[in-house]
């Protein structure tokens, strides 16, 4: 829970990545219930196939949740995630093991903020979700 050390963070620094356990179908059911997104393409294979998918796909917001988890860990208890933005580009399926990465884009000494560049990937270098965040330190 200590997060990164603000004084040591530097522009261009690659931060410790978050590797999530393989996504299970039951996690998608849990996320549907917790988030209120009941679109059946995330929980029912038959519905997913009917719209041309190979089977259920994960909620894009779940991947954004993983990036939120990474940002929350990085800022720790010394601040908060003041901004989080993502662009969804690739689909995520049950069984996928996702790696969430963050890099310091800019350190703002006056505001005590770090601008981060974010990505989620299954295979190295192939971004499924990209984004950015601002960590605000108290």
């Amino acid at each position, binding site marked *: *829970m200590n997060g990164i050390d603000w004084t040591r963070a530097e522009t261009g620094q690659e931060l410790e990545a978050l590797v999530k356990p393989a996504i299970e179908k039951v996690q998608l059911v*849990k996320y549907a219930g*917790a988030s209120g997104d009941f679109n059946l*393409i995330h929980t029912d294979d038959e519905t997913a196939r009917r719209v041309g998918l190979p089977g259920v796909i994960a909620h894009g917001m*779940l991947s954004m949740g993983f990036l*939120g*988890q990474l940002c929350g860990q990085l800022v720790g208890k010394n601040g*908060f995630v*003041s901004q989080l933005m993502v662009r*969804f580009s690739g689909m995520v399926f049950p069984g996928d093991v996702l790696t969430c990465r963050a890099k310091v884009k800019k350190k703002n000494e006056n505001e005590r903020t770090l601008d981060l560049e974010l990505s989620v990937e299954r295979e190295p270098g192939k971004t499924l979700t990209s984004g950015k965040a601002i960590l605000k330190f108290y």
Partner: protein
Amino acid sequence: MLIDPSIIGSTSESKIFEIEKGAIRTFAEAIGDDNLLYKDEAFAKECGHRSIVAPPTFPTTIRVANPKVKFDPSRVLHGQQEYIYERSIVAGDVLRCFSTVVDVLEKEGNTGKMTFLVQEIRGEDLAGNLVYRAKSTLIIR
């Protein structure tokens, strides 16, 4: 266009949301996020919060429908999502939220024309102070 651009600028009625501890814990658990701030109230208080804190994407649970916005959900893709916070949301917050259509535009894609719908939800405390904004871009094909 699949959505009438004349709805740009239209705003929903406001809706009141009570932020509950149980909802926060269930949400964090579904993500597999074991951050203590999201589940341990004593710890959150030690860190200066009134109660447990909501994860950054928690406002996805705050759904405010604008009756003027109509589309077939099976034809929609979530293109982009953004959350901007003035402060963290904590359990016990009571937020007044409303949704505005920011933009409707059409772009030529690989599979024909696509309509982009940009909406923003604003959440305020009961004194009227802005707490967060959630901006989403949906792609309708």
